[in-house]
């Protein structure tokens, strides 16, 4: 952890006696784009607020660039935050909102003007300096909020679901803009979201959280392809999660059939979660697949069809470019690398 710019050790936080964060350990490297991902109430925002200095941990320590910052108030921390609902100052215009931090540092008028104009240009808001905040669209407000933080040249930028209020199209655009900006400026981003697609698109590292505990930490590819437990598998993408039993290394039984798989090291007869991605199941004529089932519903999704296929009581979610009509019986095939074995969640 030599070049960790942010480090959280054993952070615990309670609100009204309820544990919100339970022994969180997290290390963020310089210039990394880290995303805290999880459902609402998982503790991701609290973690961010502890890094920002808006909450004090009950236990544990926070390091910034090697220095203990537990008791440093936000205004002395070299990081800036983009708040969930932007928190732009309604009594100041766009220019003055962005200039806020610079004026506090008592920079001279020319420097401030230069820096703010550069930001406005960067965010394609060149002639918006004199506008009132309530004259802007959601997307523009969002960019002002980021500009207001970035103009201070923080070492770390914290972002709390900054795209939550935008609509789909704009959200996708902003995802790419943000990622490009992070690369270009070389600033560490710590990003909070509940949207797994957003996390996959932008992050270098994803931290999946649930109920105040870090479930898994890794690159998007790691998290998606090798989820450590059923929660992660289900949260990071739609999944079929079945009960299975390990017969032997590389052999698992579920739905009454045995399947080869790539996993070993489980006890014989151990009950496990078997996770299969909907896009890994392929349709075949009846008899050719190891499993078969009746198509219960078909939905056209554009790129693929989404089908619910009932196989002996388990309803598989299948994504496929092939389509079988509702009511027909189809076969389903699986290759060993489509089967992911996980320890049962407690």
């Amino acid at each position, binding site marked *: 952890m030599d070049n960790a710019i942010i480090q959280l050790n054993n952070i615990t936080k309670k609100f009204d006696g309820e544990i919100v964060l339970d022994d969180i350990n997290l290390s963020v490297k310089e210039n990394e784009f880290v995303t805290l991902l999880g459902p609402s109430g998982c503790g991701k925002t609290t973690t961010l607020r502890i890094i920002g*200095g808006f909450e004090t941990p009950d236990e544990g320590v926070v390091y910034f660039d090697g220095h203990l910052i537990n008791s440093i108030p936000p*205004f002395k921390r070299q990081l800036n935050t983009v708040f969930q609902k932007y928190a732009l100052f309604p009594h100041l215009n766009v220019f003055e909102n962005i200039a806020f931090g610079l004026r506090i540092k008592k920079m001279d008028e020319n420097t401030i003007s230069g820096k703010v104009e550069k930001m406005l240009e960067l965010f394609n808001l060149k002639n918006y300096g004199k506008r009132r905040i309530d004259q802007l669209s959601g997307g523009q407000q969002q960019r002002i909020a980021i500009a207001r933080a970035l103009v201070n040249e923080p070492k770390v930028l914290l972002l709390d679901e900054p795209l939550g209020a935008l609509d789909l199209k704009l959200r996708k655009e902003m995802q790419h803009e943000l990622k490009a900006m992070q690369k270009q400026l070389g600033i560490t981003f710590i990003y909070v979201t509940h949207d797994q697609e957003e996390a996959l698109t932008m992050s270098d590292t994803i931290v999946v959280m649930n109920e105040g505990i870090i479930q898994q930490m890794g690159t998007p590819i790691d998290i998606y392809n090798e989820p450590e437990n059923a929660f992660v598998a289900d949260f990071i993408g739609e999944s079929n999660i079945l009960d299975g039993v390990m017969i032997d290394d590389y052999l698992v039984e579920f739905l009454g059939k045995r399947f080869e798989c790539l996993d070993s090291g489980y006890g014989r007869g151990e009950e496990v979660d078997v996770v299969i991605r909907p896009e890994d199941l392929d349709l075949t004529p009846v008899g050719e697949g190891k499993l078969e089932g009746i198509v219960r519903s078909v939905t056209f999704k554009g790129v693929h069809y989404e089908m619910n296929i009932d196989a002996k009581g388990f309803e598989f979610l299948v994504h496929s470019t092939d389509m079988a009509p509702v009511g027909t019986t189809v076969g389903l095939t699986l290759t060993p690398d489509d089967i992911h074995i996980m320890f049962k969640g407690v």
Partner: protein
Amino acid sequence: MKDRTKYLAYPYVLWIIVFIALPAFLVLLYSITSKESNGLTTIHFTLENFKKFFQPMYLNILWDSIYLAAISTVICLILGYPAALIISNTHVSNRNTLLFLCILPMWMNMLLRTYAWMTILGNNGILNNIFAFLGLPRFNMLYTRGATVMGMVYNFIPFMILPIYTALSKMDKSLLEAADDLGADKKTVFKKVILPLSMPGVISGIIMVFMPAVSTFIIPQLLGGNKNMMIGNLVEKLFILNGDWNFGSAISIVMMLIILLSMSIMNKFDIDKEGGARLW
């Protein structure tokens, strides 16, 4: 509530406005007619009443009233703003208790509240007794301009605290965090965010204190003695003692114009046009 109701609505609104505005209109009428007018048949229009007012004696009273009301307003602001700020930062459970204590005296007869101050400030009053007990000389506090100002501050300070409190408690707390995040220490957060955002409340408060203060007559009468007459006392005297309703009305119209003027100036500073923190 459109269509049919509309036809009923307008006459009703008209009627209620007449009910509310008719006396005001009468006052206006009195102010521009002479004493000799009588009933509906003989009306003499004149500007005499207004001319009369622009004499040094009356202008001095006017000036004095504005001066004392302005001082009281400033003191209310200086004392009331911190109080409102502290109440808005208090935990919810205690907040209502504090607010309740602030407005408690408003439910007591105004006369009574003012009398209570007479017993505190009087020559043989509580404060002088305490001074005497401490070996300090007694001195006269009642029937001074200071007593009048104090009485006004006391009576009207809740009207300053409440709108400022309302403005502060409506403020989005994340704005304070944002300012903190951008490097502002507490003093700067106050100066650059809290104060400007609470301006609508401050302006409401100023209007709501200045307006009754400038036209009060009970407080200067009881606490100020007869030494300093305020405009309210003048009006009262003209009506009750002299029976000069026309001149009294003219004075009231002038006062109303002054208040309207100062309100419209105030409103220019009011950023939050959508009625943010205005009580009305």
